[in-house]
């Protein structure tokens, strides 16, 4: 049933190409609108909003691997942390230009993605999941041990980032950081929309559905997936670098199993295989976390657990799929039988 829906969507894509473009344009405008609204509605919690944007980049990168390639990973924070530490170390050593730092983070993330992909793609199923966990734990211990470069468990502090374009200072209220992060997110989102609708993105979806058939058609599976890992690493590294720049601290928690697991939960909550789902899931999860965990962290765990069980049982496609279904149902009601 799900497979049929998937293929329908895939075959429908080229025919309805024009409609999709307009739909994506509306989507991007909505993201910008939501971002600007957040800027004016919550001027006191811009630091939290910037953090949400950084994590949204991480969740987007995870969506590329899990949602589009079907490779389950519980170690995505490795790539996020690689970007964060690379940007942080570069900043401490005198590189203060924000865009350069972001580029350094993206490159470091991509390199980490190359290594991680090369290791993970050797196994399948459970072993793959365990490898991803082992990699993030190993990276965590390594970052902890190399305290001369990373600050160890105290975190890497003392990042002084120069003004953006030499004009806009990173102020105390985080206005520059937030707007910078928002434009970064929108730019990455548009690029990823092109990537996933390209023939390469289609090939990845095909591999997710049936790797054996794709191989029989004459495509090489491993290099395609590795390429997606590198792209995903660059996106996650960008997120890490943004987190480092905006908070001016890089902590050990940026390369942790907990962050990886949370990212996966956010992704599944929002919906796999749609870039919008990644954003929706991140915003809802982190918004709730901010409110509830301030009251009692253990209540928060119970709630997340119940939410996860409910999503698996009631809405296996995530919230964005639920929204799709609701809007499709409305259309059907207003337009009679299809």
């Amino acid at each position, binding site marked *: 049933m799900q497979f049929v829906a998937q293929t329908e969507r895939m075959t429908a894509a080229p025919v309805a190409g024009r409609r999709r473009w307009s739909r994506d344009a509306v989507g991007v405008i909505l993201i910008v609108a939501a971002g600007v609204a957040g800027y004016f509605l919550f001027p006191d919690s811009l630091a939290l909003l910037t953090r949400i944007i950084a994590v949204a980049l991480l969740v987007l990168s995870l969506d590329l691997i899990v949602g589009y390639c079907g490779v389950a990973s519980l170690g995505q924070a490795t790539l996020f942390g690689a970007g964060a530490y690379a940007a942080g170390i570069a900043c401490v050593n005198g590189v203060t230009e924000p865009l350069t730092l972001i580029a350094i983070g993206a490159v470091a993330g991509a390199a980490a993605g190359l290594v991680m992909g090369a290791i993970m793609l050797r196994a399948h199923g459970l072993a793959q999941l365990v490898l991803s966990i*082992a990699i993030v734990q*190993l990276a965590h*211990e390594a970052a902890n*041990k190399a305290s001369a470069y990373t600050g160890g468990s105290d975190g890497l502090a003392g990042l002084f980032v120069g003004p953006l374009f030499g004009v806009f200072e990173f102020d105390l209220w985080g206005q520059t950081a937030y707007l910078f992060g928002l434009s970064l997110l929108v730019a990455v989102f548009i690029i990823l929309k092109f990537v996933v609708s390209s023939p390469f993105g289609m090939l990845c979806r095909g591999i997710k559905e049936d790797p054996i058939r794709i191989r029989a058609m004459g495509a090489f599976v491993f290099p395609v997936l590795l390429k997606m890992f590198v792209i995903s690493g660059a996106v996650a590294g960008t997120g890490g670098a943004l987190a480092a720049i905006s908070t001016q601290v890089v902590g050990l928690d940026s390369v942790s199993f907990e962050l990886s697991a949370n990212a996966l939960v956010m992704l599944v909550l929002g919906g796999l295989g749609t870039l919008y789902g990644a954003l929706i899931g991140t915003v809802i999860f982190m918004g709730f976390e901010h409110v509830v965990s301030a009251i009692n962290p253990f209540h928060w765990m*119970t709630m997340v657990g119940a939410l*996860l*069980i409910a999503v698996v049982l009631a809405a296996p496609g995530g919230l964005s799929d639920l929204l799709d279904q609701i809007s499709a149902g409305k259309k059907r009601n207003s337009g009679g039988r299809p």
Partner: protein
Amino acid sequence: MQTILSIATDAFAYGMALFIICIGLSLTMGLMRVVNLAHGAFAMIAGYIASYAARDLGMGYGVAIFLAIIGTIIISIPLERLLYRRIYGSPELTQVLMTIGITFCVIGITNYFFGPTLKTIPLPEALAEPVDLGFRTIAAHRLFVMACGVAVAFGLWYLIERTTFGTKVRATVDNAAMTDALGVRTQVIYAVSFAIAVGLAAFGGVVAAEFLPIEPYYALRYMVIFLVVVSVGGAGSILGAIAACLVLGAVDTSGRYLMPEFGNFFFYAAVIVIVFMFPRGFFGRAQ
């Protein structure tokens, strides 16, 4: 030589403690094909029950273990009926999410009732005393854990290889539909195996509490270790689980003895190397 023997005995005790908990998970994953990340949560529930019975109610160690096993199995039955039944045969990602959700709920609820402190399970006098082995003295409790591990391994081997129930279990693993058609009630086999797996988790959680202390985040903290052990050993294989526990226990213990400042570094490095070389685990079945 002294150091090597010390490391060897500690590694063996630690490995056996891991084994008692992990073999239950290995059964669930090999037999029912469920990636049960909530396995550690069951061990944690058992630890809390045992601690409550032994420390707060003043019952004996043996009674506490018994109560913990029975109590945990009783708690697990509705979970199996209502939640696990729905994810048999689902993709791994679904199972992972569902069981992580269960783990979070268990952590939140137990801490709501018992408070966020470390729980100890007082040992009886006989197990707390040191025993002289000739080259060093060792806590009697460690010998007890080793004996339990060997007993569990032998008991399971006997159950699966030598009894009618074991034959039915193996048949169900190989081809559930065909076994069903032959008149074996596979649903019952699944339910009983799940109960056995949970019971082993409970037993291991209490007995191994000296190695893996019972604390609020127990279920999350050791979840990764349990999953790693099963994946390294190969799901469903007793021999594989023993081998994985002994190898990983040895790596972890010697890492802690010789280079304590590196923490878990060598443990996870070994895991990556082993999984890279044996993607299906030491004794995993080809799928």
